[in-house]
Protein backbone atom coordinates (compact mmCIF):
# COMPACT_ATOMS: atom_id res chain seq x y z
CA UNK A 1 0.00 0.00 0.00
CA UNK A 2 2.80 2.31 1.01
CA UNK A 3 4.61 1.41 -2.20
CA UNK A 4 1.52 2.36 -4.27
CA UNK A 5 1.25 5.78 -2.65
CA UNK A 6 5.00 6.25 -3.04
CA UNK A 7 4.76 5.64 -6.77
CA UNK A 8 1.76 7.98 -7.04
CA UNK A 9 3.75 10.70 -5.32
CA UNK A 10 6.73 10.19 -7.60
CA UNK A 11 4.46 10.34 -10.66
CA UNK A 12 2.94 13.60 -9.40
CA UNK A 13 6.40 15.02 -8.70
CA UNK A 14 7.55 14.13 -12.21
CA UNK A 15 4.44 15.67 -13.76
CA UNK A 16 4.98 18.88 -11.81
CA UNK A 17 8.72 19.02 -12.47
CA UNK A 18 8.27 21.42 -15.38
CA UNK A 19 6.50 24.02 -13.24
CA UNK A 20 8.48 27.24 -13.28
CA UNK A 21 10.70 26.07 -16.15
CA UNK A 22 12.87 28.78 -17.74
CA UNK A 23 13.28 29.17 -21.48
CA UNK A 24 16.40 27.54 -22.90
CA UNK A 25 18.57 29.82 -25.04
CA UNK A 26 20.70 28.88 -28.04
CA UNK A 27 24.46 29.44 -28.25
CA UNK A 28 25.44 33.09 -28.85
CA UNK A 29 25.72 34.48 -32.38
CA UNK A 30 22.80 32.55 -33.82
CA UNK A 31 22.22 35.32 -36.36
CA UNK A 32 25.74 34.92 -37.80
CA UNK A 33 25.22 31.19 -38.19
CA UNK A 34 21.83 31.73 -39.86
CA UNK A 35 23.44 34.25 -42.20
CA UNK A 36 26.22 31.77 -43.04
CA UNK A 37 23.66 29.10 -43.78
CA UNK A 38 21.73 31.44 -46.05
CA UNK A 39 24.90 32.36 -47.96
CA UNK A 40 25.83 28.70 -48.41
CA UNK A 41 22.36 28.00 -49.79
CA UNK A 42 22.59 30.93 -52.21
CA UNK A 43 25.97 29.70 -53.43
CA UNK A 44 24.38 26.49 -54.56
CA UNK A 45 24.56 26.65 -58.34
CA UNK A 46 21.65 26.19 -60.65
CA UNK A 47 23.01 22.81 -61.71
CA UNK A 48 23.28 21.62 -58.14
CA UNK A 49 19.64 22.53 -57.63
CA UNK A 50 18.65 20.66 -60.79
CA UNK A 51 20.83 17.72 -59.74
CA UNK A 52 19.33 17.51 -56.29
CA UNK A 53 15.82 17.75 -57.81
CA UNK A 54 16.52 14.92 -60.24
CA UNK A 55 18.07 12.76 -57.54
CA UNK A 56 14.85 12.77 -55.52
CA UNK A 57 13.55 9.18 -55.58
CA UNK A 58 10.07 10.17 -56.82
CA UNK A 59 11.47 12.28 -59.67
CA UNK A 60 14.09 9.67 -60.59
CA UNK A 61 11.53 6.85 -60.70
CA UNK A 62 9.05 8.96 -62.68
CA UNK A 63 11.81 9.86 -65.18
CA UNK A 64 12.85 6.22 -65.52
CA UNK A 65 9.24 5.14 -66.10
CA UNK A 66 8.82 7.88 -68.71
CA UNK A 67 11.93 6.76 -70.59
CA UNK A 68 10.84 3.11 -70.43
CA UNK A 69 7.36 4.09 -71.63
CA UNK A 70 8.73 6.09 -74.56
CA UNK A 71 11.02 3.20 -75.47
CA UNK A 72 8.07 0.84 -75.39
CA UNK A 73 6.00 3.10 -77.65
CA UNK A 74 8.88 3.51 -80.12
CA UNK A 75 9.55 -0.23 -80.17
CA UNK A 76 5.88 -0.98 -80.72
CA UNK A 77 5.68 1.54 -83.58
CA UNK A 78 8.81 0.14 -85.20
CA UNK A 79 7.57 -3.42 -84.98
CA UNK A 80 4.19 -2.64 -86.48
CA UNK A 81 5.95 -0.72 -89.35
CA UNK A 82 8.38 -3.54 -90.13
CA UNK A 83 5.62 -6.17 -90.19
CA UNK A 84 3.97 -4.22 -93.04
CA UNK A 85 7.26 -4.23 -94.95
CA UNK A 86 7.67 -7.98 -94.44
CA UNK A 87 4.15 -8.51 -95.65
CA UNK A 88 4.90 -6.49 -98.78
CA UNK A 89 8.05 -8.49 -99.37
CA UNK A 90 6.21 -11.80 -99.02
CA UNK A 91 3.47 -10.83 -101.45
CA UNK A 92 5.09 -9.86 -104.72
CA UNK A 93 2.94 -7.95 -107.14
CA UNK A 94 1.33 -9.55 -110.13
CA UNK A 95 3.95 -8.59 -112.71
CA UNK A 96 6.68 -10.23 -110.63
CA UNK A 97 4.72 -13.49 -110.32
CA UNK A 98 4.10 -13.45 -114.05
CA UNK A 99 7.79 -13.05 -114.71
CA UNK A 100 8.58 -15.80 -112.25
CA UNK A 101 6.19 -18.20 -113.91
CA UNK A 102 7.44 -17.36 -117.37
CA UNK A 103 11.06 -18.00 -116.41
CA UNK A 104 10.23 -21.25 -114.66
CA UNK A 105 11.80 -23.42 -117.35
CA UNK A 106 13.57 -26.71 -117.00
CA UNK A 107 16.77 -26.17 -118.97
CA UNK A 108 18.38 -29.38 -117.73
CA UNK A 109 15.79 -31.77 -119.04
CA UNK A 110 15.23 -30.01 -122.27
CA UNK A 111 14.82 -32.56 -125.08
CA UNK A 112 17.26 -31.74 -127.79
CA UNK A 113 15.96 -32.14 -131.34
Amino acid at each position, binding site marked *: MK*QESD*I*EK*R*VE*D*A*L*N*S*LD*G*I*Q*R*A*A*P*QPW*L*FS*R*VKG*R*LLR*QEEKTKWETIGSFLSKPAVAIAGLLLILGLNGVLLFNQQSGSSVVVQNELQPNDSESLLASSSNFDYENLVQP
Partner: protein
Amino acid sequence: MNEWTLIEQLKQGDEAAFRTIVDTWQDMVYNTAIGIVQNAEDAEDIAQEVFVQVYQSVSSFKGDSKFSTWLYRITITKSLDHQRRKKRKKRFALVRSLFGEDSEVVIHPPDFNHPGVALDKKEDATTLFKAINNLPENQRVAFTLHKVEGLSYQEVSEVMKTTVSSVESLMHRAKTNLKKNLADYYKEKE
Protein backbone atom coordinates in the same frame (compact mmCIF):
# COMPACT_ATOMS: atom_id res chain seq x y z
CA MET B 1 9.96 48.61 -33.36
CA ASN B 2 6.53 47.33 -34.36
CA GLU B 3 6.25 43.65 -35.44
CA TRP B 4 4.52 44.54 -38.72
CA THR B 5 7.08 47.18 -39.61
CA LEU B 6 9.82 44.61 -39.08
CA ILE B 7 8.07 42.09 -41.30
CA GLU B 8 7.51 44.66 -44.04
CA GLN B 9 11.19 45.62 -43.87
CA LEU B 10 12.21 41.97 -44.03
CA LYS B 11 10.02 41.50 -47.09
CA GLN B 12 12.17 44.18 -48.73
CA GLY B 13 15.32 42.26 -47.76
CA ASP B 14 16.41 44.53 -44.91
CA GLU B 15 19.21 42.74 -43.03
CA ALA B 16 18.86 44.83 -39.87
CA ALA B 17 15.20 43.86 -39.63
CA PHE B 18 16.15 40.21 -40.05
CA ARG B 19 18.74 40.51 -37.29
CA THR B 20 16.13 42.04 -34.95
CA ILE B 21 13.69 39.24 -35.76
CA VAL B 22 16.28 36.54 -35.03
CA ASP B 23 17.35 38.23 -31.80
CA THR B 24 13.77 38.72 -30.62
CA TRP B 25 12.38 35.25 -31.34
CA GLN B 26 15.43 32.97 -31.14
CA ASP B 27 14.77 31.80 -27.55
CA MET B 28 11.14 31.02 -28.33
CA VAL B 29 12.09 29.00 -31.43
CA TYR B 30 14.99 27.21 -29.74
CA ASN B 31 13.04 26.38 -26.59
CA THR B 32 10.16 24.92 -28.60
CA ALA B 33 12.52 22.86 -30.73
CA ILE B 34 14.51 21.56 -27.75
CA GLY B 35 11.25 20.63 -26.02
CA ILE B 36 10.26 18.45 -28.96
CA VAL B 37 13.56 16.96 -30.18
CA GLN B 38 15.16 16.81 -26.70
CA ASN B 39 18.67 17.43 -27.98
CA ALA B 40 20.55 20.74 -27.80
CA GLU B 41 22.53 20.33 -31.05
CA ASP B 42 19.49 19.27 -33.05
CA ALA B 43 17.46 22.15 -31.59
CA GLU B 44 20.19 24.62 -32.61
CA ASP B 45 20.17 23.21 -36.13
CA ILE B 46 16.38 23.44 -36.31
CA ALA B 47 16.42 27.03 -35.02
CA GLN B 48 18.79 27.97 -37.86
CA GLU B 49 16.60 26.20 -40.40
CA VAL B 50 13.51 27.99 -39.08
CA PHE B 51 15.05 31.45 -39.53
CA VAL B 52 16.37 30.54 -42.98
CA GLN B 53 12.83 29.58 -43.93
CA VAL B 54 11.47 32.78 -42.39
CA TYR B 55 13.89 34.80 -44.54
CA GLN B 56 13.02 32.87 -47.70
CA SER B 57 9.26 32.70 -47.29
CA VAL B 58 8.33 35.85 -45.39
CA SER B 59 6.54 37.07 -48.51
CA SER B 60 3.99 34.27 -48.02
CA PHE B 61 3.18 35.52 -44.52
CA LYS B 62 -0.07 37.42 -44.98
CA GLY B 63 -0.66 38.34 -41.35
CA ASP B 64 -3.76 36.16 -40.86
CA SER B 65 -2.22 34.98 -37.60
CA LYS B 66 0.30 36.47 -35.20
CA PHE B 67 3.93 36.34 -36.37
CA SER B 68 4.83 34.23 -33.31
CA THR B 69 2.07 31.73 -34.19
CA TRP B 70 3.52 31.40 -37.69
CA LEU B 71 6.98 30.90 -36.19
CA TYR B 72 5.69 28.24 -33.79
CA ARG B 73 4.13 26.35 -36.71
CA ILE B 74 7.35 26.37 -38.73
CA THR B 75 9.34 25.27 -35.67
CA ILE B 76 6.98 22.42 -34.84
CA THR B 77 6.86 21.18 -38.44
CA LYS B 78 10.65 21.21 -38.69
CA SER B 79 11.13 19.57 -35.28
CA LEU B 80 8.68 16.77 -36.03
CA ASP B 81 10.23 16.22 -39.48
CA HIS B 82 13.63 16.04 -37.84
CA GLN B 83 12.46 13.46 -35.31
CA ARG B 84 10.80 11.33 -37.98
CA ARG B 85 13.99 11.37 -40.04
CA LYS B 86 16.02 10.40 -36.99
CA LYS B 87 13.66 7.53 -36.10
CA ARG B 88 13.76 6.28 -39.70
CA LYS B 89 17.56 6.30 -39.66
CA LYS B 90 17.58 4.47 -36.34
CA ARG B 91 15.20 1.79 -37.64
CA PHE B 92 17.27 1.40 -40.80
CA ALA B 93 20.49 1.05 -38.78
CA LEU B 94 18.80 -1.53 -36.55
CA VAL B 95 17.64 -3.59 -39.55
CA ARG B 96 21.12 -3.39 -41.08
CA SER B 97 22.74 -4.50 -37.85
CA LEU B 98 20.28 -7.42 -37.62
CA PHE B 99 21.39 -8.58 -41.06
CA GLY B 100 25.00 -8.16 -40.04
CA GLU B 101 25.57 -5.46 -42.64
CA ASP B 102 28.09 -2.95 -41.43
CA SER B 103 27.20 -4.27 -37.93
CA GLU B 104 26.51 -0.65 -36.94
CA VAL B 105 25.59 -0.38 -33.28
CA VAL B 106 22.41 1.58 -32.59
CA ILE B 107 23.39 4.27 -30.13
CA HIS B 108 20.79 5.28 -27.60
CA PRO B 109 20.93 9.01 -26.86
CA PRO B 110 21.83 10.09 -23.33
CA ASP B 111 19.06 11.25 -20.99
CA PHE B 112 17.86 14.73 -21.82
CA ASN B 113 18.32 17.54 -19.34
CA HIS B 114 16.41 20.70 -20.14
CA PRO B 115 18.67 23.61 -19.13
CA GLY B 116 15.73 25.66 -17.82
CA VAL B 117 14.61 23.16 -15.17
CA ALA B 118 15.39 23.93 -11.52
CA LEU B 119 18.26 21.89 -10.09
CA ASP B 120 16.15 20.01 -7.51
CA LYS B 121 13.70 18.91 -10.22
CA LYS B 122 16.25 17.79 -12.82
CA GLU B 123 15.90 14.04 -12.20
CA ASP B 124 12.09 14.09 -12.25
CA ALA B 125 12.10 16.26 -15.37
CA THR B 126 14.46 13.87 -17.16
CA THR B 127 12.09 10.99 -16.42
CA LEU B 128 9.13 13.09 -17.57
CA PHE B 129 10.82 14.03 -20.86
CA LYS B 130 11.50 10.34 -21.50
CA ALA B 131 7.79 9.66 -21.05
CA ILE B 132 6.81 12.66 -23.21
CA ASN B 133 8.88 11.17 -26.01
CA ASN B 134 6.56 8.16 -26.10
CA LEU B 135 3.40 10.24 -26.55
CA PRO B 136 1.63 10.47 -29.92
CA GLU B 137 2.78 13.52 -31.91
CA ASN B 138 -0.22 15.82 -31.37
CA GLN B 139 -0.32 15.13 -27.61
CA ARG B 140 3.43 15.74 -27.42
CA VAL B 141 3.11 19.06 -29.26
CA ALA B 142 0.21 20.27 -27.12
CA PHE B 143 1.93 19.23 -23.88
CA THR B 144 5.26 20.81 -24.88
CA LEU B 145 3.69 24.09 -25.97
CA HIS B 146 1.68 24.32 -22.76
CA LYS B 147 4.20 23.04 -20.23
CA VAL B 148 7.59 23.94 -21.73
CA GLU B 149 6.68 27.11 -23.62
CA GLY B 150 3.99 28.19 -21.17
CA LEU B 151 1.31 28.89 -23.77
CA SER B 152 -2.34 29.04 -22.74
CA TYR B 153 -4.81 26.51 -24.21
CA GLN B 154 -6.14 29.31 -26.44
CA GLU B 155 -2.65 30.00 -27.82
CA VAL B 156 -1.94 26.28 -28.27
CA SER B 157 -5.19 25.92 -30.23
CA GLU B 158 -4.16 28.80 -32.53
CA VAL B 159 -0.77 27.24 -33.21
CA MET B 160 -2.24 23.79 -33.80
CA LYS B 161 -5.17 25.21 -35.84
CA THR B 162 -7.75 23.52 -33.66
CA THR B 163 -10.32 24.36 -30.99
CA VAL B 164 -9.67 24.98 -27.32
CA SER B 165 -11.78 21.94 -26.39
CA SER B 166 -9.61 19.77 -28.66
CA VAL B 167 -6.53 21.04 -26.87
CA GLU B 168 -8.17 20.30 -23.51
CA SER B 169 -8.88 16.77 -24.69
CA LEU B 170 -5.32 16.35 -26.02
CA MET B 171 -3.88 17.54 -22.71
CA HIS B 172 -6.16 15.24 -20.72
CA ARG B 173 -5.11 12.23 -22.81
CA ALA B 174 -1.46 13.27 -22.63
CA LYS B 175 -1.59 13.46 -18.82
CA THR B 176 -3.35 10.08 -18.56
CA ASN B 177 -0.75 8.45 -20.82
CA LEU B 178 2.10 10.09 -18.96
CA LYS B 179 0.76 8.96 -15.57
CA LYS B 180 0.53 5.38 -16.79
CA ASN B 181 3.94 5.52 -18.43
CA LEU B 182 5.59 7.02 -15.36
CA ALA B 183 3.90 4.60 -12.96
CA ASP B 184 5.14 1.65 -15.05
CA TYR B 185 8.62 3.15 -15.08
CA TYR B 186 8.77 3.65 -11.31
CA LYS B 187 7.29 0.18 -10.61
CA GLU B 188 9.93 -1.39 -12.83
CA LYS B 189 12.63 0.60 -11.10
CA GLU B 190 11.70 -0.62 -7.60
